[in-house]
């Protein structure tokens, strides 16, 4: 049986066996899921042939995620995570005037949610080729590109919620009598403190890069020099970039001190303190852009061997 590759020809089985396999110039044998057959992608391929004819530059590569051409998986990263994780809720701000000695504090803002993890790049397939004879025109060269796919970008994180504002302090109280003037019976109350801002959400980690593939070619001794001229691309995929971290929530405003009525003494500084801002990602981890990037994959390898008998 002959098997001819012209243009782009998809192959979706684990084994490709033919008497003769012919690669026409500019052709691509694409390891990819078959729309007709369904199922997952074949992550390993064994090619068995008595003879391989190469009539010009040709390629064997893979496309497991059905991304549109012209670039297949080795040249296209996984798609980025879209959207943004939920932001934290804003803190509660109590209304009115509070009780003595201190009014109610604003509640803290909620932290932003972590961004979605990036999609990992796929590991490149393993390709094993058993071939008796290789015939190749002068301009012919087979490129086997099983570089690991690059990981996808992580998702963006949610923002921290703002802290609630502190309540206004209670007013001072006085008493008065006809014989000894007015008296201060209770000083002005302190305003409530503002709530803390919510922490910034962590960025989604970038997807890990896929591992490079493994390519072994077994052929009869006379054809070994030819298969050694082929191009074997077994590099690893790079890890995806992290998403953007969220922004930190602002601290709530402190409530004002209570109203001072004569003759009560002034109460400078009795306003509630402003709540602290939430932590930014830079404060938590100054090197987050590196730490939250996806890990690179590992490189694969290729080798060529001479054998005495090829399978059939």
């Amino acid at each position, binding site marked *: 049986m002959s098997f001819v590759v012209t243009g782009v020809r998809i192959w979706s089985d*684990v*084994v490709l066996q033919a008497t003769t396999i012919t690669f026409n110039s500019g052709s691509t044998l694409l390891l990819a899921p078959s729309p007709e057959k369904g199922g997952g992608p074949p*992550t*390993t391929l*064994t090619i*068995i042939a008595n003879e391989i004819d190469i009539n010009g530059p040709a390629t064997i590569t893979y496309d497991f995620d059905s991304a549109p051409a012209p670039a297949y998986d080795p040249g296209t990263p996984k798609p980025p995570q879209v959207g943004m994780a939920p932001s934290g809720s804003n803190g509660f701000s109590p209304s009115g005037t509070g009780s*003595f*000695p*201190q009014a109610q*504090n604003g509640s803290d803002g909620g*932290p932003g*949610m*972590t961004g979605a*993890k990036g999609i990992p790049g796929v*590991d*490149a397939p*393993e390709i*094993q080729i*058993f071939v008796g004879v290789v015939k190749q025109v002068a301009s012919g060269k087979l490129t086997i590109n099983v570089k690991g796919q690059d990981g996808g970008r992580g998702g963006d994180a949610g923002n921290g919620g703002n802290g609630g504002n502190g309540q206004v302090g209670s007013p001072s109280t006085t008493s008065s009598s006809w*014989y*000894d*003037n007015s008296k*201060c*019976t*209770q*000083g002005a*109350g*302190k305003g409530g*403190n503002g709530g*803390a801002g919510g*922490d910034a959400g*962590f960025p989604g980690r970038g997807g890990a890069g896929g*591992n*490079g*593939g*493994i390519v*072994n070619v*077994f052929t009869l001794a006379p054809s070994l020099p030819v298969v050694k001229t082929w191009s074997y691309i077994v590099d690893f995929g790079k890890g995806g970039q992290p998403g953007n971290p969220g922004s930190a929530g602002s601290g709530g405003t402190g409530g004002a001190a209570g109203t001072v009525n004569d*003759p009560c*003494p002034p*109460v*400078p*500084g*009795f306003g509630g303190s402003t709540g*602290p801002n939430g*932590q930014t990602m830079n404060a*938590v981890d100054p090197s987050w852009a590196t730490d939250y990037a996806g890990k690179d*994959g*590992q*490189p*694969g*390898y290729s*080798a060529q*061997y001479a*054998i*005495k*008998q*090829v*399978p*059939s």
Partner: protein
Amino acid sequence: MINTPLVTVAGNYDVTDDIIFCDLLQFVGISPQLVIRPVPGSKVGARRLLKIVAKVIDTTGSTGATITYNLDNNFELPAGNIPSFADPTTQTKTGSDGTPNAWQGPFPDTASPNFNPVWDTLHAGPFPKAADGGDGYAGGRGGTGAQGMDGPTLEIWTTNVIGGVSIDLRGQQGGNGGKGGNGQFGGTGQGGSPGITGTDTSWTGVPYLVCTQQPGQPGDGGRGGNAGCGGDGGDGGNGGFVKIFYTSGVNVAALATMLQGGKGGNIGTPGNPGKGGAAGALETTIPVACGTGQNAQVGPNGDGCQGGDTGKGGVSQPGSPGADGSLTTYVVKNIPSD
């Protein structure tokens, strides 16, 4: 490449080559294991393939013959039902503990300033409000558990199988996340300043005491540091792939495969939040004319971080399970030879 007429597997037989050509692959003794190990020079996590071209695979001189793998070179205790230290039956490493990790035992790690009245002789702070205790730092997030090893690809070419072999290339279970760090305790607030009195006279000319400066408010206690969240669980490894090329008449069913994906690791244990600092002491000798002093507030405890909630430090996530591998069998007329 290993190229020899006879390969005998007794006990643990480690293979670091990627190809074995032999006439007879023989398993002998009790629980012999052919263990696929990393190719020299390769990094942990790299893909691994072993091709076995054996005319005959014979296990009749053994019990419990197995082909499995150990690709992470770690020493891990077996967790599965097979008494083996190979990757499919062990769980990979737990993530590192989170740092910082505040000591919370006797004499706990406490934020500064910390106006502990026992050794802080300058109790009284400035008017109108003394200094607050320092806020505790948050515990660090635990490290992510290591990713489980993917099962390798095993390609077998054979013309005869005598006896049976278990091929265990299940994905390794991901490591559990590391423990989150404990939050630091908040500092104690400074003591409040005393009230100050003066005199005034009524319209009848009688002097009486008035309060010219109310007692200062003590410092609030510092906020306890948040608990560090447990680390994310590591993803489980993918199950391996097995391709068996055999000539007609070979009992392929004698090569039993286990190719399930590994489980994801669990979220690490969260740390404990730090306790809020105590409020500063109120001045005890408050003049009657100055009424009541204003107490300061105890610092709030740090936030906890329960697995899966929205606790600060980012939501921890368990590892994802690995995908199952697959088995392919294919009949050929003859197998390669070298």
